[in-house]
């Protein structure tokens, strides 16, 4: 590389980095996990492997409240769901039908926390999460 070219490149690098940061924005997160990893993680915490059959029952039950997971995500959640109160389209939850599903740890945490409170009025246990992941992983085209 000629000195002149190196000079230009060195000058351009911070700009390129800044542009990248500006484009990504503060909310952009990397795909840092997968549904398979999440299943392993919750199974390890629960001390037993996720049970797909139990997960199916959990997913479709109302748990004494007004909503089930399936109320918004659909049953089976392999196609677009619809938010029960707003009507907004929700992308398929089953990983085989949505490559972005369960690929962001912070999002997984956030939505389990919020949605479990909405459906069960409490947070879900590791075992319940493992069961749901096993159920969702079992849904294949």
């Amino acid at each position: 590389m000629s000195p002149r070219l190196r000079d230009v490149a060195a000058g351009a690098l911070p700009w390129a980095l800044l542009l990248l940061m500006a484009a990504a924005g503060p909310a952009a997160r990397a795909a840092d996990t997968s549904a398979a990893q999440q299943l392993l993680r919750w199974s390890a915490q629960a001390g037993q492997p996720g049970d797909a059959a139990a997960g199916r029952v959990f997913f479709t039950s109302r748990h004494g409240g007004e909503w089930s997971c399936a109320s918004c995500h659909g049953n089976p959640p392999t196609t677009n769901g619809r938010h029960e109160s707003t009507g907004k389209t929700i992308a398929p939850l089953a990983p085989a039908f949505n490559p972005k599903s369960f690929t962001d740890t912070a999002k997984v945490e956030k939505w389990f926390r919020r949605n479990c409170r909405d459906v069960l009025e409490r947070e879900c246990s590791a075992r319940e999460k493992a069961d749901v992941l096993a159920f969702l992983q079992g849904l294949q085209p």
Partner: protein
Amino acid sequence: MSRVLAFVAGALLLSAAPFAAQADGGRRMPAQVPPAYAAECGSCHLAFPPGALPARSWLRMVSGLDDHYGTDASLDEATVQQLSGWLVAHAGTWKRVREEPPQDRITRSAWFEHKHRRIAPSAWKLPSIRSAANCAACHGRAEQGEFDDDRLRVPAGLDARSRRAFDE
């Protein structure tokens, strides 16, 4: 030296650009929407334009996200601060939006009720609409922040009287 100055100026511009306070206060979606707004406020419902509510309504809303109209929409504090700053900077200041609506609901706003006065109350419950919050059922470009009357589409099953509101 001049390159350093240009770099600093550029860095300032770039970092500020996505959240530039244009304090327009109008009804249109601001040109720059923080990615966190689309991600956090646009998952369960449309990412509504900040001009749809006055600043005090937005402030109340973001301070009570753990019980957001019956659902848990809680966020980390940093995101709450970021979004509340943006919402307040772009909150509605035009005539019919100044009054805070009951429960800070956009759909109870004077401007919303006026604009939709010819829609039968029963129409909102149609399966093709489901909720007055589902703007995109009729406003075809709502996801892009456009609510122009000439972009309307008639949802399935709409009664004849309500449909007439679409023709005018």
